[in-house]
């Protein structure tokens, strides 16, 4: 049952990923990307990481896809034809590189022998059960899966607190930097160009929108 569910979800995910990469219409590609993120969230649920699935839906489907959609809308051409993006000259090398990477990864997945003290994970068919009716009471993994939100909060505040603070610093710097980068030229042209000589004659004249 779970295998059939996985195959269906993986099929939908691979199809939407392929359509993201191959479709010529960028808006369609962005919608397919949202679908792909949703299937990844479904895989997280199959892996019993429901907290991460909710996070994936909130951040990727809710924010990143919409941000990419805004980027597509903001950079479409004056005639509106830049929305359709054809393949570049590197089509054949790209496909060759992708197939070679997939072949190498698949070989590594199936030919992995494992360390001497460990079992090989290439032939790992079962996971340790975390159902409530199982025998041993106090497995840490099981209690973590059963109250994931609490455990994530506690671990982020104790064991991974430095990584947590660094992630906050990275987010702040990235957001401030993104706003600064995207707004600098507009401010320079607005301040009558006393400091920097303009390189283009009138960059703001034929823009459709700020």
């Amino acid at each position, binding site marked *: 049952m779970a295998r059939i569910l996985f195959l269906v979800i993986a099929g939908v995910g691979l199809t939407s990923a392929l359509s993201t*990469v191959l479709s010529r219409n960028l808006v369609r590609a962005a919608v397919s990307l949202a679908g792909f993120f949703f299937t990844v969230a479904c895989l997280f649920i199959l892996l019993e990481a429901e*907290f991460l699935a909710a996070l994936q839906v909130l951040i990727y489907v809710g924010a990143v896809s919409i*941000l990419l959609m805004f980027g597509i809308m903001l*950079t479409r051409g004056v005639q509106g034809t830049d929305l359709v993006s054809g393949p570049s000259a590197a089509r054949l090398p790209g496909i060759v590189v992708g197939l070679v990477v997939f072949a190498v990864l698949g070989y590594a*997945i199936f030919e992995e022998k494992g360390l001497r003290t460990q079992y090989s994970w290439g032939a790992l068919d079962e996971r340790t059960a975390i159902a409530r009716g199982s025998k041993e009471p106090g497995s840490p993994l099981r209690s973590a899966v059963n109250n994931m939100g609490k455990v994530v909060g506690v671990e*982020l505040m104790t064991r991974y607190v430095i990584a947590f603070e660094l992630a906050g610093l990275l987010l702040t710097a990235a957001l401030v930097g993104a706003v600064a980068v995207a707004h600098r030229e507009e401010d320079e042209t607005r301040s009558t160009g006393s400091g920097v000589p303009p390189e283009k004659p009138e960059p703001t004249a034929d823009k459709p929108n700020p």
Partner: protein
Amino acid sequence: MGSDIPLSWFLLFAAATFAIGIIGVITRKNPIAVLMAIEIMLSAANVNLVAFWRYGPERLDSGPIAGIVLAIMVITVAAAEVAVGIGLVILCYRRWQAADVDRYDSMAG
């Protein structure tokens, strides 16, 4: 023969989506499409992290949710990367008046 999903299926799915992402990064011309392909690759890495967390042996010295926290960090970095990437794409679009990575040939000005 249990009915559980083998670990290698998750790994194969992640490998396939990673390869698709690499194909997209190399073959697409629009910078936003390249960003989308990079996001696909990061999601493939996340699937691998969570699968190894769930199927791997329990290690008490690295905490019960090491894979989850690593995936959360990857999601954070991906969100920051998208924000900066969109800003840079808009800047490049203003500079060259085109959304085509083959025409972005200079870092000056």
